């Protein structure tokens, strides 16, 4: 507006002509129109800016909303996380309770086996002792029937003593810490065969014992495995008195063959103990490894029904497994792995048979 003021002042001051005046007025109007256009532009610009602002505002608002949502989500996540952590805590607590319960039941089992060993054996000893004293001191005055009953009492007592001891051994196995060491199995088997010598007295037994690879295992426990399996093999190849046998089996020919060998399977040795005894019907195979499970009458074959359960417990402790194959009157084979450790030595030379009886 400065130029308008300046033109007016000039006309007043210097007394300009009407033409000049009209020109000046046009000039001024022109100036006005320019100004108007500039003002409109400015206004546009301002509108634009305002529109931009409003856009910004909308954007800001949505950002804010998003932030709020995010915060809300965070809150939910936090609640969820808290829930998870609570659940975890609860799980940990449950585990702790379960562990405590397991410890308590372990302690109970321990004190149970303790009192079984202490309390149950005592009366058995008394029955054995006094029945024997009765037989010795008064046997002469007893008739044969009474003496026979006394013998039955003795036998029963011995059986129960064995049962109690084997049950205790089985219970102790659970607590026995595995002491793994590289072990040569052949010397262990030789020891077991020597221990079992009295049971094969007067019989022709052909032992086919292969050269076995050394393995990482607990030698004390693995000796127990071989002892139980080989004792079983000897027992179930024993000639039977009833003559109820088929040709070709140990029971009919009195020729016993017991084989100990191994084969590689899945990169680890599978050990086997095979006999040509009375075998078993495969439909009962699931019962073989159960405690107190027996497939034969006590009159035919003595036993407690704990031996194979013990074998299974030991093998499982090593991380291995045990299984059996059999056929009635043809023989039985027991297989097991001791996969807890790596093989210490792979100098297997196959199933070389070496007789030693």
């Amino acid at each position, binding site marked *: 507006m400065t130029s308008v003021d300046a033109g007016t002042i000039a006309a007043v001051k210097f007394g300009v002509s009407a033409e000049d005046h009209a020109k000046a007025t046009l000039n001024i109007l022109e100036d006005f129109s320019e100004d108007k256009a500039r003002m409109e532009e400015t206004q546009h610009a301002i509108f634009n800016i305002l529109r931009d602002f409003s856009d910004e505002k909308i954007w800001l608002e949505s950002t804010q909303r998003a932030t709020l949502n995010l915060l809300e989500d965070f809150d939910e996540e936090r609640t969820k996380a808290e829930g998870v952590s609570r659940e975890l805590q609860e799980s940990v607590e449950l585990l702790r309770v379960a562990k405590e319960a397991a410890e308590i039941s372990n302690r109970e089992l321990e004190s149970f086996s*303790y009192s079984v*060993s*202490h*309390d149950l*054996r*005592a*009366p*058995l*000893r*008394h029955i*054995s*002792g*006094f*029945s*024997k*004293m009765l037989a010795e001191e008064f046997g002469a005055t007893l008739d044969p029937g009474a003496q026979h009953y006394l013998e039955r009492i003795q036998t029963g*007592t*011995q059986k*129960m*003593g064995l049962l*109690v001891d084997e049950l205790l051994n089985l219970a102790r196995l659970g607590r026995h810490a595995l002491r793994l060491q590289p072990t040569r199995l052949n010397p262990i088997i030789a020891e077991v065969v020597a221990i079992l010598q009295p049971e094969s007295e007067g019989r022709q037994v052909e032992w086919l014992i292969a050269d076995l690879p050394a393995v990482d295992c607990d030698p004390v426990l693995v000796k127990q495995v071989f002892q139980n399996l080989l004792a079983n093999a000897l027992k179930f190849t024993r000639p039977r008195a009833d003559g109820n046998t088929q040709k070709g089996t140990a029971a009919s020919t009195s020729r016993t063959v017991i084989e100990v060998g191994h084969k590689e399977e899945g990169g680890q040795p599978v050990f086997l103990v095979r006999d040509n005894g009375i075998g078993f019907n495969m439909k009962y195979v699931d019962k073989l490894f159960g405690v107190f499970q027996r497939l034969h009458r006590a009159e035919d074959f003595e036993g407690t029904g704990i031996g194979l359960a013990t074998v299974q417990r030991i093998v499982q402790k090593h991380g291995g497994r045990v299984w059996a194959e059999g056929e009635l009157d043809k023989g039985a084979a027991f297989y097991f792995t001791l996969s807890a450790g790596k093989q210490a030595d792979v100098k297997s030379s196959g199933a070389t048979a070496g007789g030693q009886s």
Partner: protein
Amino acid sequence: MNSGELEILLVEDNRDDMDLALHALKREKLANNIVVARDGEEALDFLFCRGAFTHRSFDHPPKLVLLDLKLPKVDGMEVLKQVKSDPRTKTIPVVIMTSSKEERDLVSGYNLGANSYIQKPVDFDQFRETVKRVGLYWLVINQPVPLGTGAKAAAQRA
């Protein structure tokens, strides 16, 4: 064997076990002079010459103590502990004779100074054989501390 000399203190609360042990010991003619204590307290009174046994002297300890573990009043482990921690009685051979062969009993028995640990067999023939061997070893084969140099001397120092 001097018939007047005390040979065995049998510490046994169970009457049946006591009769069987006495029967076995007498049958093997290993010991004629056997005293039976029926609980841990009685055993301690006897060994430490007190209570009903004040007339006894530390000069005449039993040649062998056969000790059961499960006993009324004072249990076998406590009897063993007191006997083996006192200089007047520590040279007396103590053989634990028990039903249990629990590892913890074996370990604490030997730690407390037991001279031997025997599990009573269930079978009476084996039981007799065991008692015979224990008696033979401790009463006949084993050489005890000479009287007056072990227990008595220690008692005088105490």
